[in-house]
């Protein structure tokens, strides 16, 4: 596919540390490689930084949940959009991380304990992703069957966690609480003893925002690296990539584990944001949200995942219960049917076409047609 040619990253001039940095995070696998994009990016970040000052801490705290979800969106974008593995089970890792964080931090409610819970949550979900990924990819499970296994995994966890109401499901001092979940998870704090810092509403917002920007830029570097090219090759044609001598199974496992860690990060932040986690995170309705965000935003772009996640959640939250699901469902239908590539690649293409100079940016995604075999 044209999208994989390498001559797109030539917009940065040689020399200077900024340019060296730009070369690493720009390439054919991401949209936004022009000076104009980075100016826009800076403006967007600046307005996000200013947002809490404008709307106050309550709104900022509400908005930080959408930023937390963006990690979940990113995790699916990496796994599905870049490596071609449609996982319906990113919430498995999200939920496992949330529960792990809850169990550890309730038992050790000191800053050090919470820091450890944070790390254990992320590592635990990455481990679960690695085990599940090994089980699937090295067992020769492919395509839609991966989707179904991940979907069924969320249902297993949902059924399992829902029946943990009894006393035998208390780990240390942390009761899993069945359908009601765990309501007393401490707020996020990082550090040791006196040198610890607790993240309440506005500082939590800035912490999540900084983490999100770092993750986004880091993932851009990953997908534009040589490894990222192999990921995209796996997405485009597994058999051909294997013929070229790449270890397709290992690549998929590595990407799936990375996706698990990202979803886990999201889950840990979610649990500490609301001080709460319940089996609802394993519900089909929640499991489908990442798929919706990423489909609408454009699964082959990291930016699309972030923008669509934050945008859709903002709208869904503002609309409130009744009409939200109808709006989200219609969005999904319209995008899958009319704009299978998603909104960000579409805007990007329109922008490039309008400027009329394809050389300044990478070639637009040539086709949105998937190889569906």
């Amino acid at each position, binding site marked *: 596919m044209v999208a994989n040619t390498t001559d797109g990253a030539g917009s940065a001039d040689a020399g200077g540390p900024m340019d060296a940095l730009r070369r690493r995070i720009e390439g054919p696998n991401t949209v936004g490689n022009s000076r104009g994009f980075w100016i826009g990016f800076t403006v967007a970040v600046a307005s996000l930084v200013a947002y809490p000052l404008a709307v106050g801490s309550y709104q900022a705290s509400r908005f930080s949940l959408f930023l937390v979800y963006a990690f979940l969106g990113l995790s699916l974008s990496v796994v599905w959009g870049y490596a071609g593995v449609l996982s319906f089970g990113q919430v498995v890792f999200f939920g496992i991380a949330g529960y792990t964080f809850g169990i550890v931090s309730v038992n050790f409610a000191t800053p050090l304990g919470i820091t450890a819970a944070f790390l254990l949550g992320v590592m635990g979900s990455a481990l679960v992703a690695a085990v599940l990924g090994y089980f699937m990819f090295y067992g020769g499970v492919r395509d*839609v069957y991966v989707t179904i296994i991940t979907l069924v*995994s969320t249902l297993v966890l949902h059924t399992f966690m829902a029946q943990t109401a009894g006393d035998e499901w208390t780990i240390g001092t942390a009761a899993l609480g069945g359908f009601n979940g765990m309501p007393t998870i401490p707020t996020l704090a990082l550090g040791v003893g006196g040198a610890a810092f607790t993240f309440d509403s506005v500082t939590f917002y800035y912490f999540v925002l900084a983490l999100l920007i770092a993750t986004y830029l880091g993932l851009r570097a990953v997908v534009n690296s040589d490894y990222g090219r192999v990921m995209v090759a796996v997405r485009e044609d597994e058999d051909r990539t294997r013929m070229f001598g790449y270890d397709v199974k290992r690549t998929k496992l590595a990407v799936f584990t990375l996706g698990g860690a990202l979803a886990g990060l999201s889950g840990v932040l979610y649990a500490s944001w609301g001080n709460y986690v319940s089996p609802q995170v394993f519900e089909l309705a929640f499991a489908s949200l990442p798929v919706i965000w990423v489909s609408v935003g454009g699964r082959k772009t990291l930016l699309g995942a972030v923008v669509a996640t934050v945008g859709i959640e903002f709208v869904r939250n503002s609309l409130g219960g009744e009409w939200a*699901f109808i709006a989200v469902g219609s969005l999904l239908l319209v995008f899958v049917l009319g704009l299978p590539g998603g909104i960000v690649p579409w805007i990007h293409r329109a922008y490039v076409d309008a400027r009329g100079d394809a050389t300044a940016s990478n070639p637009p995604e040539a086709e949105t047609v998937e190889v569906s075999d």
Partner: protein
Amino acid sequence: MVNGLNLLFQFLDSFAFIVLAAAGLAIIFGIMGVINLAHGEFIMVGAYATTLANVRLGLPLPVAMLAGVLVSAVFGLVVERVIISGAVPNAVSRRTLGRDIVEPLYDRLADSMVATWGLSLIMVQGVRLTLGNSLDQIGTPLGKLAYGGFSYPTYRVLLAGVAVCVLALTYYVFTRTEYGMRARATIQNKPIASALGVDTERTYMTTFAIGSGVAGLTGALYAPTITMVPSLGGAFLVEAFVAVVVGGPSVVLGTALAGGLLGSINALISNLVGTFFGRIALLVTAILMIRFLPEGITGYVEHVRERRKEGA
């Protein structure tokens, strides 16, 4: 002995539930390569239509059930034309924009999953907004079978018989009728089938309507036994999904075998440990089956048969 009977009834119940839930999905997935995540909502349409016809219009239950089947079949037809094949939006866009805007979802597994999931969200919420959070329910007909100190609703035992009939009828339609022949030709090789004069577009349309009708029948049959809430389809979707995957490519045999296997596992574990674990055992079985027999039971049977042929 009484316990054995309990187990038998529980097995029949799970078997009927799994087979009836899966049949419509299996037909649509097997022939069109469309994973219909709105399948549960098609069942819901059947159940709601039956309940409304019986409670509000006062029709006798069998007639109401027939109405449920028809309503969901027609609904399926509309969905197929508007969303799955995109024929309606394309006809409109050809008039106004001069080009097609929608590509059919046939054989696009992931996209069909995402699109039908969107449809299911709209349907559940749409029904909730128009008809409220629940409906008055039809009472379970036919009384109870009493044995020893126990009793079991006759109606639920009857459903196992109906499940077998549905399988037999599906088998008949797909092997003995002209439509069935066209449908099977379309599965095997769509371009050649259409070169030989099969209207594949129409075959798909009919298939989707039949699949939806069967889903509607499931809803109609279970309408007297379950609570009428807009999200009732969710309970069916999972079992249906699992059964289709475990069953494999052969619609009738696969569904029957999957229903037998999963039904017995579910009944046994539910009886021994509890309902929650029965469900977990069913789901874990499904995961293991996909991992070790990705083609499903019937795919494996086919594989063994081919091996034998080569060996002979």
